[in-house]
């Protein structure tokens, strides 16, 4: 039988009065009802990560917060050692009313932002110089690896000698802390550009500018953005270091002052601020990541 003649027939039952009781058979009136097919999402495979939830990442921090709150309520955690979590909010509000909080956050943010701009620009520039040219690599890469091996804290005395104790020294320190991850990740990404795409670019006779724009930049973007994620965190962490050296403003100053007077609640406000600012900037970079790297197919999707 060919496919054309294989029609499904719905026989008429002229003498049929109504549905037989207990039989799930109904005579069609005008037309057959649409087949009801329940479609459902089928998840990922056995080795995939499964479907994520948008705020899933908050579970761990929330558990810590619950433990901390319960500990403070029951007195299991001594408030002189670690104040209750809500103390961070109440003290924060007090500091805000005094005007100290926003003034310190503003100056710290400015330092972090300046350091970020300088550090990221320099990191990208040097990474491209040493990643895309052998000679550039010979000149710069060694120096930067040596710099990486020297602890930042050991450099502070020299930086004070060279740049004084003012803003220049602080922003320079943050810039260098930001520079390193941006350089390392970008350099690695550039050297890891797939040779097959380089071949393609050669056969298509791209000039160097087109090669950079169409192949190198988008190809290295995952690495660059990973470096940027490290960088924003490094900028905030750097504040802790530089704002404890001869400073009279900033979150770090607020914390070290509180340490001198054993004000655990103000110290806690500082820590919470760092956490919030760090997470917020990391989230911002991940948003950029999602926008620009939408083409990637990875385990996390």
């Amino acid at each position, binding site marked *: 039988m060919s496919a054309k003649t294989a029609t499904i027939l719905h026989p008429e039952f002229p003498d049929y009065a109504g549905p037989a009781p207990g039989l799930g058979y109904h005579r069609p009136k005008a037309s057959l009802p649409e087949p009801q097919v329940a479609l459902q999402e089928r998840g990922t495979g056995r080795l995939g990560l499964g479907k994520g939830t948008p705020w899933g990442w908050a579970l761990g921090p929330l558990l810590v917060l619950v433990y901390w709150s319960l500990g403070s309520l029951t007195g299991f955690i001594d408030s002189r050692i670690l104040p209750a979590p809500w103390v961070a909010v109440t003290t924060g509000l007090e500091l805000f009313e005094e005007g100290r909080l926003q003034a310190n956050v503003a100056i710290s943010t400015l330092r972090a932002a300046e350091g970020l701009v300088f550090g990221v620009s320099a990191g990208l520039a040097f990474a491209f110089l040493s990643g895309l040219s052998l000679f550039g690599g010979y000149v710069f890469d060694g120096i930067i690896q040596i710099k990486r091996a020297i602890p930042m804290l050991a450099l502070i005395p020299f930086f004070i000698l060279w740049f004084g104790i003012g803003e220049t020294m602080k922003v320079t320190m943050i810039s260098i802390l930001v520079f390193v991850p941006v350089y390392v990740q970008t350099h690695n990404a550039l050297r890891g550009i797939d040779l097959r795409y380089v071949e393609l670019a050669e056969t*298509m006779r791209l000039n160097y500018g*087109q090669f950079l724009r*169409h192949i190198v930049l988008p*190809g290295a973007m995952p690495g660059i953005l990973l470096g940027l994620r490290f960088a924003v965190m490094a900028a905030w962490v750097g504040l802790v270091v530089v704002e404890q050296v001869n400073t009279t403003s900033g979150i770090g100053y607020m914390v070290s002052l509180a340490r001198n007077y054993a004000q655990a609640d103000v110290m806690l406000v500082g820590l919470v601020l760092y956490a919030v600012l760090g997470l917020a900037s990391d989230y911002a970079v991940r948003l950029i990541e999602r926008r620009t790297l939408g*083409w990637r*197919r990875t385990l996390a999707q």
Partner: protein
Amino acid sequence: MSGNVSGNVSGAIVSIRNVVRRFTLKGVLDGVDLDISRGEFVALLGRSGSGKSTLLRAIADLDHEAIGSGEIYVPERISVVFQDARLLPWKTLLDNVTFALKGPDARERGRRALEEVGLGGRETSLPQELSGGEQQRVALARSLVGEPELLLADEPFGALDALTRIKMHVLVKRLVSVHQPAVLLVTHDVDEAIVLSDRIVVLDQGAIVADICVDLPEDAGERLERTADLRRRLLAHLGVETAAPVADTALS
């Protein structure tokens, strides 16, 4: 030293003289001479390791890791289709086709090229959304949109399933008749070479061992017989001895 000089010698669009290539690891060419005329479809047939890809890469100027000698003259506009479609995963299909083009009509030309390979309307899709055959069709569109004088194809259908491959053969025949580039198709598939090309060059151990013109007659019966005969000869050159009936059934 090898010299890749653009130019035309005595009507041939590609002219290769005494080309030698040595690699430390794989592939050799041992004094290859080859001319390809304008619009000619040449299949380069050989076993794996025969040097056929090496020759193609030499013509495409992609073999700088090799040491060698000889002269290679090629036309100005060459494009290459690789075994993998080699689409840029971060670009849409249209951008993949047009990113090397210049001029205000680049996007329009890209759109037409995609339409030509049956992917009109898919301009904004990403390569990862396509099947292997579709990706290779985009690669074909990309290679033809610049109207090349020479199209180099390195086993472009090697990674496709048998049914998709047949469809691709039909598509390639049509595209080549429209755009009329000279084609050098590297393959190890004897039937593919017979179906597609005007001329079949067999390479073995880095040297050309056969150069056969494919002019099959129109008459169906005679055509079948001649095809089977050609197939047997080519397989013999490739070191595969077949009994005649086997070859016939395989072709029908």
